[in-house]
């Protein structure tokens, strides 16, 4: 998986979409990396990458590969993006009526 993604990063153009939900381009991610951001959390706060409906379920591995590609694999030991309840999107009324299972 990582091997394939590494190849993908190399093949990408600057206008490749990293995050489809929020329409974040690789060029925006790279710009923030060049301005000193080094974690996916920082990139999320600056570009909204991973903030959409999929909550990073689709874009996170790709984003992490882009970071790794540009930072030479040096990753900070800081916590990266976490998952939050609910595990999958569910409607407000479903949530209101459960009270138990998420």
């Amino acid at each position, binding site marked *: 998986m990582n091997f394939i993604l590494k190849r993908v990063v190399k093949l990408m153009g600057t206008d490749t979409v990293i995050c489809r939900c929020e329409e974040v381009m690789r060029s925006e991610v790279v710009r923030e990396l060049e301005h000193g951001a080094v974690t996916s959390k920082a990139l999320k706060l600056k570009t909204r990458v991973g903030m959409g409906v999929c909550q990073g379920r689709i874009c996170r591995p790709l984003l992490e590969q882009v970071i790794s590609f540009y930072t030479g694999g040096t990753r900070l030991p800081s916590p990266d993006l976490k998952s939050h309840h609910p595990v999958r999107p569910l409607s*407000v009324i479903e949530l209101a009526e*459960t*009270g138990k299972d998420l």
Partner: protein
Amino acid sequence: MNTADAVVIGGGVIGTSIAYRLAEYRKVVLIEQGEIGAQTSGSCDKAIFLQSKKPGFPIKLAKASREIYENLEEELGMSIEFKTNGGMIVMESEAHMEAMKKFVKERRKAGMDVRLLDRQEVHAWQPSLSSHIIGASWCSQDAEVNPLLLSQAFARAAKRRGVEMRTHTEVIDILCEHQKVVGVQTSHGHIATGTVVNAAGPFASKIAEMAGVGLTIMPRRGAILITEKMNPMIHGNILCSQYIAAKHAASDTYDMPSYGIGLSLGQTASGNLLIGGSREFKGFDKSVGPEVLSAIAKHASRIAPVLHNVKVIRSMVGFRPFTGDGLPIIDQAKEVEGFIIAAGHEGDGIALAPITGHLVAGLLENQEQYQDLLKPLRLDRLQAV
């Protein structure tokens, strides 16, 4: 060796606002253990509420901050999605009417543009709300901002003024000699400084302890639901009268609704709805159970049935720094010269961030114009009780 005229600890909306203002006078280093605006300031709602503050000093302070917002985007040089769409506090029951009339009267007396809306007026302005809402208070001065952009905007503007931002850096110790701050020991080296500003929000007590300063600020946990993007359906911010009760209840008292639930509803510029929220004392435990999230959803869907089929994509949990009397502490510690506290804004950090920067600069540079706002924020007001 590293030196600074002031070290600001904490890179949330409060710390970045302070660093930006102080940089006008001093060489400032800001230390943040994680990312800029990623903790409390990145897990809160977006309201700049004026009418929710108590009459008297709290309203005076909030108004001073609100005035700064008017030109803040221009000053910081980027959009923070500041919008002046007003805000309302809705009532579900006739039983709240008398209290609400008094609430409106007090705020009008304080010079605010607040009035009572009847059922028809509420529905004309917010068609998304349930028909059982009997009325609301309305304030045209309530506004909204994107808290994530606010932290980023203060941080960028501070950088332009020469502030050095050290993220992923932890404070290990505050070094003092003869009851005077002389430096900060961090996970990435030592900084010699005579001034430390503790803007660590819910973590401020821990930082104060390093300097030998007693400070009680408790983390009050708040959860908010975030939905998928929707077309505009909510105008400005909406609170419910139960929210006001939960906000001003000093602790988990008998008049506190379960989990401190009160509606706080708004829609971001990108279309996501933010549905709050809860208020609980659970230490720094971030794992909010499904019963709390469900209670928030239940309360919100009763007031705004249009939410029923909107999808919740995540929840977020933050720790609001709680002082006990609803006001932050902005003061120099008596025990240690050069140790400044600027923390404890609880749920008003977004509303009060702009004025806090000015107040800390005013305190350190002895600016006369801010002294009347600083006096009620002294640390000893809480110790005297």
